[in-house]
């Protein structure tokens, strides 16, 4: 009788443990999915920022100014220089971040490499 009781108890404990393990797995998977969504958002933001930089760098008006310095020297030159220097700063940052491998689950925040938040 004691053996049956112990076996039944063990069965209950095992089932419970299996349930806990499954619950943990589910939670872990959910967490992973959340992190992946977050990574997608961050990468999308990075894409947008780089797209903006690209567009600013290749703006036809800016290119026209750089190709015709003698025609429009005074007013627009400082602005272009300013934007170029700003872009240069960012480009260092972005090359650093793009040089880094970003496996999905070993994600490092492009702007905050120490942690996700």
């Amino acid at each position, binding site marked *: 009788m004691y053996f049956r009781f112990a076996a039944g108890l063990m069965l209950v404990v095992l089932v419970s443990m299996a349930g806990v393990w499954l619950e943990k797995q589910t*939670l872990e998977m*959910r967490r992973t*999915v*959340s992190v992946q969504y977050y990574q997608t958002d961050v990468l*999308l*933001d990075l*894409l*947008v*920022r780089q*797209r*903006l930089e690209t*567009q*600013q760098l290749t*703006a*036809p*008006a800016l290119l*026209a100014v750089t190709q015709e310095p003698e025609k429009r020297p005074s007013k627009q030159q400082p602005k272009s220089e300013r934007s170029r220097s700003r872009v240069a700063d960012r480009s260092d940052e972005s090359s650093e971040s793009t040089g880094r491998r970003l496996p999905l689950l070993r994600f490092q925040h492009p*702007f905050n490499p120490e942690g996700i938040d």
Partner: protein
Amino acid sequence: MTEVLDDEVVCRTAGDVDDGLADAPLSNELPSAARRSWRFGLVCVFIFMGWAILVTRLIQLQGAQRHLMNDRVTRQSIFSEVIPARPGEILDRNGQVLAMTIPCDSLFAVPEEIPDPWDFAWRVGPILNLNADELYHRIADNPGKRFVWVQRRISDERVSAIRDLNLPKATWGLRREYQRQYPQGRFASHVLGIRNVDNVGQGGLEQSLHEMIRGVDGNRVMTRDARGIVMEVTAERSHSPKHGQTVISTIDLLMQIETERQLDALMEEWKPIGACAIVMAPSTGEILAMASRPGFDPNDLLAVPEAAWKNLAVSAVFEPGSTFKPFIVGWAIQNNILAFDEMIDCSFGLYRMGPRVLHDHHSYGALSVEDVLVKSSNIGMAKIGERIGIESLYEATRAFGFGRRTGIELPGELSGLLRPVAQWNVYSLGSIPMGQELAVTPLQLITAHAALANGGRLVRPHLLKRPDGAEQDSVPGSQIVEPGADVQSVLLDSDIAEWLVQQPMKQVVERGTGKSAKIPGLPMFGKTGTAQKLDLLTGTYSDKAWVLSFVCGTPVESPEVLVLVMVDAPATPGVHYGGTVAAPTASRILQFAETRVRSFAIPRFTTEDSATSRSNHDTR
């Protein structure tokens, strides 16, 4: 318990006897036992009552107040936050970004949690370039609030600086928002409009397509524990945001830049109150460039003059003057009131029309219909107007789209001013054919001219390019806005429209009032317009203020591009005619557009198209 107690009493009584205490009175013991029994009973009653109260309370909480408690628990443990949708991009026809959105952070404070507002303001203010005193008052005046904006849309550098302050976490927070950026700067600002701090489109495509560009916000439902730490995101109750759609405009950025540069040069040379230019593909109604002056930079809205918000291309009305004449001639020929080769007596520059005396700039005798347009004879046009009659004249004006909005995807478009035909009189017969007594917008004018250049077919001007499948989503997940259908109607036979373009309007540039627009090697047609402005003080036409316009197109045989330049009251002394002020600028824009338009896949108008359209129109 009672049995045990009785045993105790019995034992104690026996012990007492054994211990020689038999002589102690038994009556003293009995009241003590009764007291103990009474106390025990009291304790039991209290315990029972305690349990009863607990059970009752439990039943009350779990039964009667179940919904209330459930709601309270839900409120405390489950909360949701809005995930803002990213507004869509606006691109030019070649994929260059005209407007886009980047994420950024906005800083808020929690005044209720800030013990020392002055310290908070003193530390945060300098980083954000805010007046610390003003920030202090904003926090101190709302001590019970849990949310006060400190500054919205702050840069990453400032966010880092704020983080480095290590302020108590409960006193502040960052909220993610989106900021609109216009990478091309001030170019096409009137076409694009702006998005304000609350992400609401104002002016231009930003306003007219706001619902599509804005997208739909999502929300994230989360569960937190008693300490407020998020345990999990409830996916089944959360909704992803639906990001805004991408708008592909018909604008060509290079053409837009060149148009605006030419307009700036015109503004500098003639110093008018305002000016605008439109470049259009007549066969499709696509607006390739649209500029208005004074202008503004949508990235810097702090110093925008009031007049700069107005897009003169759609919201300025002016009397078109001579640019209106070809429509009346075309309509008269279409209705067999006038013949191509007819001669019109222009009365040597002086013609009495009822009580009114009309003059021409030069004295002309008999002029051919072509020369009436080339030399822009007012008397010749008045005589044609007399033949047409009031009713038909009104019909012609309406048919070419005047007096109603074109339907372009821009807010604030005016319908112009076309009085009801009942208010027309004998003056109207002379005034309307020469482009007076009605007011039009520049867009209406170029749209009507596009009908002439397009074999007599009137097309709706539009700024949305139909995606041809070659475009790719600019940002993953975004969709592309589809334009509406082009409304088309056939106004003139193609041979009449072609004759107008290839004969009189070509000759206007060759030997007429638009000679200054002529560019060697560039066959073009055009029409000048010089209209007096109304003097609001006297209620009569002013002799000093003029609205000058010039519309031109190329190539002559099958026009691919049209340009209109309108100049409002130039101030620089000089000869103020459409041919002298507006025409040179328009022709330079046209020259650039002519080379540029070759790279587009704009369908050309052909005679067969017109014949097909005409037959369709007739069957309807």
